[in-house]
C-alpha cells in the first residue's frame, strides 16, 4: 500500500500526512509540477495554504499539473483524501461538491473537535464502528461548508462543536462514487498518543484496508 502526498508551494501539513500514512503503509511526496503519480494506491491532498490562498483557498492549486493526474486517478476510482486546504482544492476542482467559505467568526479557529461518523461504509471510514465519535483537531480560517445541493455527508461536528458555521454541521463529504473524500479537521495530527488522540489513524487505516481489499479481489 503506497500513499502519495501532494506538495504544493504553501502546503504545510504534507510531512505530518506522510508520517501518518507511514503508520499504515508506505508514503511518498508528489511534487505539484509533476504529472507522475509514481504508481501510488491512494492520493492525499494535505493541509496548508497552497499558492498563499490567493484569490480563494484552493483556487490556484486546482490548476497545478499534478491535479490533472489526480483528477484522472479519481475518475478511474482511485482513493483521494483531501484534508483542510486539500478539501478546499478538491471542491474548487469539482471533484467534491460544494465550497468552503470564511468562518462565521471571521477568525482562524484551532481546537480539538468531536466528529460523528455519519457514514462508516466509505473507503475512508470503514475501520470505524457505526456511530463512533472521533476526536481530531481543526485549524482553519475558511472551513464553513456550503452546498446548494444535497450532499453525501461522511462526518459531522458533534452537537455544539461546529467551529466555523458549516451548513448542517458538515465536517466531511464524499463524492457520489465514494472514492473521493474531503474533511476540514486534521486526522494526520491525531495519530500519536503524545498529541492527545489517535482517532485520526482510523481514516488512514480504512484507506489501507480498502486498497488491500481491492487488490485481493
Amino acid at each position, binding site marked *: 500500500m503506497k500513499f502519495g502526498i501532494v506538495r504544493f508551494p504553501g502546503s504545510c501539513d504534507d510531512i505530518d500526512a506522510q508520517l501518518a500514512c507511514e503508520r499504515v503503509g508506505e508514503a511518498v511526496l508528489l511534487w505539484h509540477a509533476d504529472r507522475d503519480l509514481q504508481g501510488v494506491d491512494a492520493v492525499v491532498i494535505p493541509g496548508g495554504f497552497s499558492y498563499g490562498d490567493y484569490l480563494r483557498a484552493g483556487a490556484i492549486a486546482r490548476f497545478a499539473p499534478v491535479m490533472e493526474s489526480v483528477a484522472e486517478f479519481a475518475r478511474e476510482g482511485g482513493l483521494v483524501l483531501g484534508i483542510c486546504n486539500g478539501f478546499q482544492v478538491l471542491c474548487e476542482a469539482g471533484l467534491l461538491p460544494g465550497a468552503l467559505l470564511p468562518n462565521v467568526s*471571521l477568525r482562524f479557529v484551532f481546537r480539538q473537535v468531536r466528529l460523528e461518523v455519519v457514514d462508516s461504509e466509505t473507503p475512508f471510514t470503514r475501520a470505524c464502528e457505526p456511530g463512533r465519535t472521533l476526536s481530531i483537531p481543526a485549524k482553519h480560517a475558511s472551513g464553513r461548508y456550503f452546498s446548494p445541493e444535497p450532499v453525501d455527508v461522511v462526518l459531522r461536528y458533534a452537537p455544539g462543536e461546529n467551529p466555523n458555521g458549516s451548513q448542517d454541521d458538515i465536517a466531511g463529504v464524499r463524492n457520489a462514487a465514494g472514492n473521493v473524500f474531503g474533511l476540514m479537521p486534521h486526522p494526520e495530527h491525531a495519530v500519536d498518543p503524545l498529541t492527545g488522540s489517535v482517532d485520526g489513524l482510523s481514516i488512514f487505516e480504512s484507506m489501507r484496508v480498502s486498497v488491500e481489499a481491492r487488490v485481493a479481489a
Partner: protein
Amino acid sequence: MRVRVLVSPKRGILDPQGQAVERALPALGFDGVSNVHVGRLIELDVDDPARVPAMCDALLTNPLIEDYEIVEDVSA
C-alpha cells in the same frame, strides 16, 4: 481594454464580513445603512473583453458562492 470584475458574495449566503461592517457603521454615527456586502475587485487589461465571462467562470470567481459584474472601462 481595461476591465474591472466586481465579485460579491452570492445573495442568500451568509456574509459575516458584510454584517461586521454593517454593525460597525452605526457605532461611528453613520445611521441608515443596510444590506452591506464585502466583495473583491479584480482589474485586468485584456485584448478581448468577450473572453472575460469565461475567465470569471473558470477561475476569477466561484459561481457556487459568488456573483460577478463586469465593467468595461471605456476611458482607458
